[in-house]
């Protein structure tokens, strides 16, 4: 990747119009639950936030530092499990549990880092998968602690109290919406801060050329570990948030290889190493996979009249399309890699640049 540092993405140079748009968008997002109370719409928004957090946190390690971890489910799942186990067995409320989750994840990340960062390229990818698989299999086998393959189901979340005042009792989706929004904004801000800091330049130097960075006196292992810890902590937050929101976790849903791949895909589809990439990735992936899952696509096909709902193919689509929502991930990633290797964002940037040239 010989891309020179793009001043537009590295300084985040904001024009007054951009600031105005950002503020309007923020106000809109914060007022959104007042305008829309439909639980399904809120659910989609929460998933969007969650995907943004997941993608953005991977972005720090994979996008900026160039370390393609395909084992981020390890941090997502560990965060989810620690939070849920503390809540279930020790009655620790999740807003304390998630910090404990982060602490555990940091320890796990340091161990993983010490193993995997000695390796480069494909070997690093394979090692990251192996470590995540070890954690998944351990979660299945350590039945006394994790309840094994049955997973952990919580029916009641203790109300969030500050002192004696109850802030929220988590009865609707609205508190989750705000938590998700705040966490997503937090990860975006952290990524932005990292990108602008000296740390961010070290990361990008490692991504562009490890040996050159090393010869300039950058301690590779140290900075890779820093990137990993930041990335893992944010992923752990996403995991805790997911677990509490859904109320149920088991090894395949929070520790499976699918989760690792999904995290990478969000970033790849949007465009790696950019602030907006994961947001765009989430905006593309979540609605598409939800539309498939909830059979919106199937009913849209019926509406066009190409296939009638009663026909054999119609029935087949209705029954099976929902099960194959990950098919869209596969198609998307192939299309993105072959035709827009810099993600959707990079693709449109290149397109506009081309038009600029033609106009000039």
């Amino acid at each position, binding site marked *: *990747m010989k891309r020179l540092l793009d001043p537009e993405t590295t300084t985040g140079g904001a024009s007054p119009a951009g600031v105005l748009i950002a503020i309007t968008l923020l106000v809109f997002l914060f007022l959104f639950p007042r305008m829309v109370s439909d639980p399904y719409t809120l659910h989609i928004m929460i998933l969007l936030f969650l995907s943004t957090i997941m993608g953005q946190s991977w972005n720090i390690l994979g996008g900026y530092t160039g370390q*393609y971890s*395909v084992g981020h489910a390890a941090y997502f799942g560990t965060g989810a499990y620690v939070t849920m186990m503390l809540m279930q067995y020790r009655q620790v409320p999740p807003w304390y549990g998630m910090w404990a989750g982060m602490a555990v994840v940091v320890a796990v990340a340091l161990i993983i880092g010490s*193993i995997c960062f*000695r*390796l480069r*390229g*494909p*070997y690093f*990818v*394979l*090692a990251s*998968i*192996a*470590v995540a*698989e*070890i954690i998944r*299999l*351990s979660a*299945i*086998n350590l039945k006394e602690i994790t309840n094994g393959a049955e997973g952990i189901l919580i029916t009641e979340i203790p109300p969030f109290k500050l002192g004696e005042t109850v802030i929220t009792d988590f009865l609707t989706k609205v508190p989750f919406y705000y938590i998700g929004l705040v966490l997503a904004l937090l990860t975006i801000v952290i990524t932005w801060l990292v990108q602008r800091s000296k740390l961010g330049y070290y990361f990008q130097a490692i991504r562009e050329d490890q040996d050159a960075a090393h010869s300039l006196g950058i301690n590779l292992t140290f900075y890779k570990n820093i990137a990993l810890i930041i990335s893992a902590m944010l992923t752990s937050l996403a995991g805790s948030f997911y677990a509490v929101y859904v109320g149920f976790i088991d090894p395949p849903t929070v520790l499976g*290889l699918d989760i690792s*791949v999904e995290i*990478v*895909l969000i970033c*790849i589809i949007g465009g790696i190493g950019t602030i907006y990439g994961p947001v765009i990735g989430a905006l593309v992936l979540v609605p598409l996979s939800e539309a498939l899952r909830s059979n919106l696509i199937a009913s849209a096909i019926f509406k066009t009249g190409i296939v009638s709902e009663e026909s054999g193919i119609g029935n087949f689509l209705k029954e*099976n*399309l929902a*099960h*194959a929502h*990950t*098919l869209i*991930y*596969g*198609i*998307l*990633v*192939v299309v993105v*890699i*072959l035709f827009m*290797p810099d993600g959707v964002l990079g693709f449109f940037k290149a397109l506009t640049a081309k038009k600029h040239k033609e106009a000039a």
Partner: protein
Amino acid sequence: MTIFLQSLISGILIGGVYALIGIGLTIIYGIMRVINFAHGDLLMIGMYLTYELFTLLKIDPFVSIIITIPLMFLLGWVLQKVFINRVIGALPQNQILLTIGLGLILSNTMMLIYTSDYKILTTPYSSSSFKVLRSIVNPDKYENFYDKGNTLYDKALAAGSGEKAALLEKAGSKYAEALTVKPDQFRGLNNWGVSLATLARLRSGNTANLLYRQADEKFSQAAPLGDDDFEIAYNWGTALAGQAATNTGPEADALFAKAYEKFKAAEEIRPDSVDLLNIWSATLCGQARLKTGAAADKLYNDAYEKYTAARQVQAADNNDSDSDGGTATASRRSIAEIKTTLSQAYGNYSPQFRMKPDKRDAGISVSTPLAISFIITMALTILLYWFLLKTDTGQAIRATAQDREAAQLMGINVKRMESIAFGLGSALAGTAGALISPTYYIFPQIGSTFTLKAFIITVLGGMGSVVGATLGGIIIGVAESMSAVYISSGWKDVVVFVLFLLVLLFKPSGLMGKSRM
């Protein structure tokens, strides 16, 4: 020791299939430097192909590889031309993501077609197995002696009268040894009793009596251990009857009565045994011969009753309807008639004892489908070696793997080699899928497990080394089955992953890292 050998052999057998998967991946990597994350999904496609060929056209899975190999080669060829070709020389992460995407498309398309239900391909030999190393590997001492005793007894039955006694004595001593190891085995006690009683039959007078008494003792020990065991009751009764025949007077009567008791017990367990009814009738007959008058007549009548019962069971077994008439007239027959019928029937009757069969697991159990697949795997591997070493195309492939530019300069069509390599890798993965389809569940997501295994195998053997992949496959197979036995089946994959990490850390070039193909 047995457990060790058992898991070693089953590990090697499954390792052969793993090797096939690993070789496919390593050839692809060797030629294109692309890590194929869709490898397990190609294997899954091979499984479904085999499944369809089996259910639709009734083609045996092992025969169907003749069709699977060219089809999978074609699929690989097309995938390479359309997709992989475009990312050769691109960033490794992009190659990895592309193949991950292809894998997702393959598995999800199969899920659309077949849903995510588990399919089972049941062949007549799917769950069958056979034993190897029977004479060498024995689970324990008791079984060892027991087995020897049984062999000696069988020999004795076949031997002439001269050797018979000596062999029976030896058999008896083996059972005795077996029972000093484990005193509470009714199978051993029964067979010991049988060998004693058979020996007693060869002797006469006091020696016979003594042997019968010993046999009686063994059966009396065996009976409470073998819960309601037909053979023990039958043998015990038969031995008692034999003993009674060597005695006279009230002693004989007491023994006869005891024998009938045992026969009755045996009858309660299995009322339709022809052998039992025959020996019972013959015994009654024998006792009747020692009596006179009404007592004898009564015994003859009883004997005849058993005799007809035996005929009835036989007739029922043979679906012979004529015998009904025979039984109808039975009660009206005179004693004289009965006598002649019985003496004709049991004149030369010599009852057979019933041995407890060899039920234990001597030797090492080998799953038939795995054994067949291992043989096919080995044949294919040898064929592949021959192809790579001796044929022009094979040498061109190896040349491309060693130095792409040099190969191109030498006039090798590198692009074609890439397509062949991917086709070959795909065909090998598909074949592996076909070979394991009789023993594994078939479902669309099975691929990822095998993709991970394939990586571990190739990294272990050294990326790009065919010899290494063969070795790596067998090592992983053995490591898996060993840890399943000695640690637990839940942790076996963890052991394999830990092994993988250790190799990555301490010998990232793998076992055969230096030699490329």
